[in-house]
């Protein structure tokens, strides 16, 4: 009975999980798998952006800057001989550590001022990556990052990451890990503090929430996650160059979050996968793609302020309410309950 209920409530997620896991087995095209790997990497970056932007209400435009810090950190440490499995959390920790200082400075400002000051930091990272030649190798970047260290498995051999399929599963693993972390964080009293700050900082402070440390925590966790994402990106690409810290990346991720659904769990992933494939599909249009992309973004902001996930949730709700109404009795109560359940989508 219990499993039945679990299935009934989570069938959609299970379906998506099965689809994600079987993707490289069903799709044989290396081309599509590669796009999917990229899309899911961007989804990870969008997920962490959603934590500070969507759930905490602070528009950090330094996201690519921290992505870059993580990417360069991983490039340098793995090339110096460190195992990928140590270098990756180190990349996250490095981004989080720098983020702590940047947060101490910038989180004293609010609204647009926070956006602008973080944008400045992002630009600084980009410039440093391009000009600190001794460390970063300038515009050429650092090449020849070794593939993730194989994981030994007793009796069977080892799990290596040279094949595209295994790289895909590596990305899926971290995507799920990030989802888990953000889900747990958001659905806790700590997450409630984030949302209190987003909704009304003055009131949050008045009821006893230290809004500054709350924002700082969200910012540090965000930067840890995006630093790791930068590390994963670097290892999959086998190299880094200053473009990994370019602020146009930040704006793309921002768009994924908005199109998918701000402050929803699935939104950043939906946005990243959909837009990445759409852009790829329109490859022949060249620069015009960006115009179409801009148009989609504007439409989303005007017509679907809660993104595609918001639209889907509302549709699903309507259908459910409709059938609840037909069955009669307690439809309203059911609606309230299922609305609660859908909140976390």
């Amino acid at each position, binding site marked *: 009975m219990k499993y039945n209920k679990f299935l009934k409530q989570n069938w959609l997620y299970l379906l998506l999980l099965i689809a994600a896991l079987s993707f490289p087995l069903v799709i044989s095209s290396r081309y599509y798998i590669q796009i999917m790997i990229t899309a899911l990497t961007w989804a990870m970056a969008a997920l962490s952006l959603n934590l500070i932007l969507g759930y905490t209400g602070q528009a950090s435009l330094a996201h690519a800057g921290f992505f870059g810090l993580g990417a360069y950190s991983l490039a340098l440490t793995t090339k110096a001989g460190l195992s990928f499995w140590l270098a990756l959390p180190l990349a996250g920790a490095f981004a989080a550590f720098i983020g702590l200082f940047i947060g101490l400075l910038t989180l004293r400002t609010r609204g647009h001022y926070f956006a602008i000051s973080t944008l400045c930091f992002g630009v600084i990272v980009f410039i440093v990556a391009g000009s600190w030649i001794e460390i970063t190798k300038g515009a050429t970047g650092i090449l020849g990052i070794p593939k993730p260290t194989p994981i030994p498995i007793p009796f069977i051999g080892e799990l290596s990451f040279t094949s595209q399929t295994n790289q895909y599963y590596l990305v899926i693993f971290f995507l799920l890990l990030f989802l888990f*972390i953000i889900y747990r964080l958001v659905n*806790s*009293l700590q997450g409630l*503090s984030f949302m*209190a700050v987003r909704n009304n900082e003055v*009131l*949050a402070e008045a009821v*006893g929430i230290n809004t500054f440390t709350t924002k700082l925590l969200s910012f540090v*966790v965000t930067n840890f996650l995006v630093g790791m994402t930068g590390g994963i990106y670097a290892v999959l690409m086998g190299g880094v160059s200053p473009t990994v810290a370019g602020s146009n990346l930040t704006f793309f991720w921002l768009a994924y979050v908005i199109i998918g659904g701000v402050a929803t769990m699935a939104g950043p992933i939906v946005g990243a996968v959909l837009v990445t494939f759409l852009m790829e599909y329109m490859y022949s249009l060249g620069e015009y793609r960006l115009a179409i992309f801009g148009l989609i973004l504007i439409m989303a902001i005007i017509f679907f302020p809660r993104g595609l996930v918001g639209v889907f949730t509302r549709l699903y709700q309507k259908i459910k309410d409709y059938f609840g109404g037909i069955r009669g009795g307690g439809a309203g109560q059911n609606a309230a309950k299922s609305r609660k359940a859908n909140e976390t989508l």
Partner: protein
Amino acid sequence: MLLKVEKLTKHFDGLVANNHISFDLAEGEILAIIGPNGAGKSTLFNLISGMLPATSGKVFLEEEDVTGLKPHSMAERGIARTFQTTTLFDELRVMDNLAIGYRVRTRTGFWDALLHSSRWRREKEETEAKVMEALEFIGMREYAYHFVSTLTQEAQKRLAIGVALMSDPKIMMLDEPTAGIIQDETDGIMELILRLKERGITVCLIEHKMRMVMDLADRIVVLNYGEKIAEGPPEEISCNPAVIEAYLGGEHIA
């Protein structure tokens, strides 16, 4: 003395919004602060609760100097407040608003949330119980899942008091808790304030409705143009010439 306000002064550019305001708040009493619009009542609340820095003067809570502390520290020390324009987390549900009000008494952090530690579980259950109790107290049990924006003005006022109540404050400062609601509903809020007092909470109240002030208050402080012009029990205030003068042309004092 529970709270001691000493010569609080606030200048906004040229304007003196509060000028050397002193008064005491005794444990368990209801103190009303009255005065015409623009007298500086809300500013006084903002100074005490730490939302604005005072130009000069001091605030003592149980003999401890708490001048200049941040609002969240004041809340933690037991001074809760509401705002003149009803202020709630309007994107969230009633129950979440209340839960946030209790947040200052919980310590669940990143690792607790991530690992579902014993503290995470304990505080989650504790918060849920507190929310249920508060819903009961403010008479809004059936509204737990409602969004704030769907509530009536009166229900929002109740909820704002409920949110402030969640932290188990020693002092509750209510800035015009009945502003913008009709007379019939005022009685409900009044009764709620009396029940706060029964709970042992000291209440400091800004209010315009004179009948309500006269019925509720143990003592009254009167402000006019940033100055304290009178202080005393209701019957004394209602026949104080300076007070009547200040209200001339304004509201009639019962």
